[in-house]
């Protein structure tokens, strides 16, 4: 078990008393790839900020790799080395003169040796898909939006986190940028054994990448299971004004018309195969 939340409740404004998180119990295992969905204001961002102790809950307990982070005097640096957080629009936080300095900022704070920092910056930029020699001396502010975002992600990767949280990392990226980001996350998860927690409004991303989906509403976890389980609750998701993945939507609509068709499919290829089978069997029946 890497992260565990026990009865976690958070209230931002005591006067209003609205619970941003309402009695959350959650376990995240090493090597999970978790997708978190929920409409704006459902508590997704507050939840992930609990994981690296950016916010401490009003009540409840949180454990990260055995460290009780809700205890006083906890070593926050250690917690944040384990759990790296990529904020929404992380490129807004770039500030250094060069790409190298920006990515090296975290490792520098760890007081690492110069050649270790060098190595980490190289590896992080390489992972993020940016050529070290080409980008190291460039100003982060003269890069495209997609490149800036990758520099920001490299800055978090250079800290070598075991858990990587990303809050809407594909917002505003073009299709190519989104594909590259997806490939990066897959690589980090498979080849580097990093546990990943992804917040996204794009259901296709969630179904293609994660092994577990958490659905939030009003500060509560309302669904928690494999993509196949979670996206079988069509009415529930619609009542939370969440979109279904487009493939799922197509299959459900066909089933509503009386077609005998599976709905737990998330790729175009499988959907085509399933619909083709259906059309074939209808032909035979005629």
């Amino acid at each position: 078990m890497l992260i565990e939340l026990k009865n976690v409740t958070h209230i931002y404004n005591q006067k209003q008393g609205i619970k941003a998180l309402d009695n959350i119990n959650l376990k995240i295992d090493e090597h999970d790839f978790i997708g978190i969905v929920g409409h704006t204001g459902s508590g997704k961002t507050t939840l992930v900020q609990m994981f690296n102790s950016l916010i401490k809950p009003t009540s409840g307990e949180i454990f990260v790799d055995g460290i009780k982070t809700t205890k006083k005097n906890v070593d926050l640096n250690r917690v944040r080395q384990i759990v790296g957080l990529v904020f929404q629009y992380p490129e807004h936080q770039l500030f250094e003169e060069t790409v190298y300095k920006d990515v090296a900022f975290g490792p520098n704070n760890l007081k690492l040796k110069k050649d270790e920092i060098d190595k980490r910056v190289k590896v992080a930029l390489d992972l993020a898909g940016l050529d070290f020699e080409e980008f190291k001396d460039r100003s982060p502010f003269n890069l495209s939006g997609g490149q800036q975002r990758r520099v920001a992600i490299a800055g978090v990767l250079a800290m070598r986190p075991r858990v990587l949280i990303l809050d809407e990392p594909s917002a505003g990226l073009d299709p190519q940028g989104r594909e590259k980001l997806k490939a990066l996350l897959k690589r980090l998860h498979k080849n580097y054994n990093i546990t990943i927690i992804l917040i996204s409004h794009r259901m296709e991303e969630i179904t293609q990448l994660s092994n577990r989906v958490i659905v939030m509403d009003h500060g509560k976890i309302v669904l928690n299971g494999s993509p196949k389980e979670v996206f079988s609750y069509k009415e529930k998701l619609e009542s939370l004004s969440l979109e279904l993945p487009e493939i799922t939507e197509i299959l459900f609509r066909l089933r509503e018309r009386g077609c005998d068709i599976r709905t737990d499919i998330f790729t175009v290829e499988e959907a085509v195969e399933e619909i083709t089978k259906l059309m074939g069997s209808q032909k035979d029946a005629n």
Partner: protein
Amino acid sequence: MSLLDVIGVEFKYHGQPEPALKNINFKVKQGDFISIIGANGSGKSTLAKLLNVLLKPNKGDILVEEINTKEKEKIWDIRKNVGMVFQNPDNQIVATMVEDDVAFGLENIAIPSAEIRKRVDHALKLVNLDGYESHETHKLSGGQKQRLAIAGIIAMEPSCIVLDEPTAMLDPQGRKEVIDTIKFLNKEKGITIILITHFMEEATVADRVYVMNEGEIKLQGSPTEIFREIDYLRSINLDVPVVVEVANGLKKEGINIPDILTIDGLVDALC
């Protein structure tokens, strides 16, 4: 008469070796709904900025209701005619109260206050924000903020609105609100729309789609025509709507269905 006439336009940013736009030619008529798609860096936003004179072409001409955007003293007339909505909702709001924000542009051009009241109320109604007149702008959702930005533009009574990825920073709910508003303004109010977007589903709503790559318009046609070119779109780093991909896959399997752009269309064709 065309509303917009873009003739042989080229544009190069200072210090860049390659032009951002090359040989751009198109016409837009009053009431058209055009969407422009293209990967990052394809020149979409540059083109938008040329249309409302934030930039001027190095070569060629842009005529807005027959006024050339190079005519310095006409800049403000053109900008009044071609309203622009940007990506980030937070960068476009100037006032703390909703109705003041809509009135901002009108006050700047010294419209009488009774007329301002009328136009503000009308604009808020059109974007479905009536009742929010005295709300604080910073408390609005992203979708509401973008609709407020659109209201501010409508109040100026432009003949054309250019929207540069207006939904990129919104959640699905906000995206739907904004797209519904744009459709309504075009279909019911006859306002000309130029919508730049990364969401292919949004482009299917338009009457015509322009596909940009490397500073040029490479394809133009109806959404059905454009999204037939799946392989080409992929080759220039665009995707196609999932439903189009599914329909295309089914055709390859020998299932006879027409060109399809929406889930409704696919379901109807199959059952």
